């Protein structure tokens, strides 16, 4: 059941190469065997959901993808080629960005400052590192307009914004450097139903532009089955089922999560 990822039917993708493919990943934390041959892959324009109970290994798996944890063994392929991803900067260098659940925003800074934090354009040395605010603002406006977030305020502190707006800014920050893959950790966890819908339509907009999206979520019934393309179910550190989102109900996914449907593989 574990090492089947490579053989899994891929008819939906007609032979295109996955952007990222993790195969047969093993990971120990001391005596804890967190990942026992887990696999996941994401194609351009595809939204993949990783679901599972607490401790199933989905967070560990995306952290391996993001370079936060290095895998003990297993294959990490980027656009079909094996790569070494052992720290977060390795992943970002490849074009893999992560939006953490806490969003990693500074609530006292505005949208532009948050979008560019750590990547500001500054003037020459004698200006003492004066930030080229106007340039950043123009680029921020372009980016947000492309994401259909054109009317988001650029000058209010993000702490004064709604949860949905903050989530959108965090996502915008992740695609500032035009990555190929974005990993979203619980993007709708703290959001109202309507805000979650806003976020899922934003994620769809990004996927339509060719981005691969990996989402870790507990929000099966509303978010996962409606807003994603494929659902990978994990349990005890390994993949137990794979669904096409449009073919399943939330109950089926939950069943697979808790073990009611062991070994079922409905993909393809």
């Amino acid at each position, binding site marked *: 059941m574990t090492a089947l990822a490579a053989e899994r039917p891929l008819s939906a993708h007609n032979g295109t190469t996955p952007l990222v493919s993790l195969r047969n990943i093993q990971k120990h934390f001391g005596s804890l065997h967190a990942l026992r041959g887990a696999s996941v892959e994401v194609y351009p324009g595809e939204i993949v959901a990783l679901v599972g109970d607490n401790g199933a290994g989905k967070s560990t798996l995306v952290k391996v993808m993001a370079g936060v944890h290095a895998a003990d063994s297993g294959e990490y392929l980027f656009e079909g080629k094996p790569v070494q991803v052992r720290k977060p900067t390795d992943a970002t260098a490849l074009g893999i960005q992560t939006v953490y659940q806490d969003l*990693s925003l500074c609530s006292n800074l505005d949208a532009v400052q948050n979008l560019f934090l*750590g990547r500001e354009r500054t003037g020459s040395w004698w200006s*003492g590192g004066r930030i080229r*605010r*106007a340039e950043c603002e123009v680029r921020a*406006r372009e980016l947000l307009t492309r994401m259909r977030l054109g009317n988001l305020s650029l000058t209010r502190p993000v702490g004064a914004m709604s949860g949905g707006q903050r989530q959108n800014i965090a996502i915008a920050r992740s695609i500032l450097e035009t990555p190929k893959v974005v990993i979203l950790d619980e993007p709708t966890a703290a959001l109202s139903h309507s805000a979650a819908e806003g976020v899922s339509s934003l994620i769809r907009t990004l996927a339509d532009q060719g981005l691969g999206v990996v989402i870790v979520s507990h929000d099966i019934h509303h978010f996962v089955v409606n807003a994603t393309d494929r659902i990978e179910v994990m349990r005890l550190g390994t993949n137990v089922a794979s669904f096409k989102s449009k073919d399943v109900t939330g109950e089926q996914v939950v069943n697979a999560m808790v073990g009611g449907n062991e070994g079922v593989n409905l993909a393809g």
Partner: protein
Amino acid sequence: MANTLTVDAPARRPRRSFGELLSSDLRALPIVIGLVALGIFFASQSDVFLTSRNLSNLLVQSTVVGIMALGLMFVLLVKEIDLSIAAINGITSVLMAKFIVEFGFSPLIAVPAAILFGAAIGSCSARWVTFVGVPSFVVTLGLGLALNGLQLILLPPTARYGLQQTGIERIALTNISGVWAWLSLLVGIVVYAGLVLSDVARRKRAGLQSPVIQSVVLPIAAAAVFGSVVVAILAAHQGIPLVVLIFAMLLGVGGYTLNSTQFGLYLYAVGNNEEAARRAGIKVARIKMAAFAIAGGVAALAGVIAASRTLGVGVFSGGGVGGGTLLLESIAAAVIGGVSLFGGRGSIHAALLGALVIGTVSNGLNLLGVENEVRLIVTGLLLVLAVSIDKLIERATGHQSF
């Protein structure tokens, strides 16, 4: 939800409510009103209060605490605290005096050395905080006491170094008067206007509009009027005291650093969300070290000024053992001015406004012949009141201040 609407990018800002303004651009309003009220009260009680001689005095009296608060602000912004600034103030000024009096060094060497030494002490406590992981409260409390002891050891048996005729006393005695006073104001305004205009020019080049009245005329005119009033008052007495000019320049450089530079932005980011800052690639330990170094260096400079005003150093330098009122008033000034102890919040004018409030209370009560005890009580109550008003505004408007 915003994201299905609109595509055009309106450069117009939406009109903001008064509550929102109070928690952002007008955050200093309550404290300014308080300061004016204090001024009116003391003016009504004493004929002397509003004389240019007294106002000039008030400004000079406020500089040491103001400069200390300005440096401390950098540390408070990154969510740390430095309780050793008063001790740094003391020990660096004693060292400076020792070098000048006992070893015959020129003040031109001793003063910069004192400032560098203060910065070095600050950066050492930052290293201890970031590498060992001991809270800055503990590190700097202990360091402050240790430096107090060292200060006593460094003093001669007479417990005092006199600094008359060494050149140091001239810092406090120098006044920039007449045409030079106005010229220095002009330089200040031109530099400020240059910064404002270059910002607007850049925005224009980038295709962004900015309202001319609001973002160009108003700030420059306000700066010019405010500066002219201050200089007029000071010129009517003896001119701009050099120490006031030093404080003004520090405020200018500090304001530019906090508002416009990458380092300034990183201070706010680290203080608000250290983990996010680290994930964004900011070298958090280095930013903190710089903040502590600035606080230490600036405290040493305040120590030099204090030594110059009192014509010597001794046990009393740096507020005496434990930092005394110097330490407490420096922290109070920053907090009254609106700097948060929880990091990431506060603007440069906090140091000025806070120091002016404390200076006004002390100066005004002094004129009324009120005892020192009352001054402490009033200052303490004002501190609690200022922070309470801030909290009440936050609660009433529902806008958290940043």
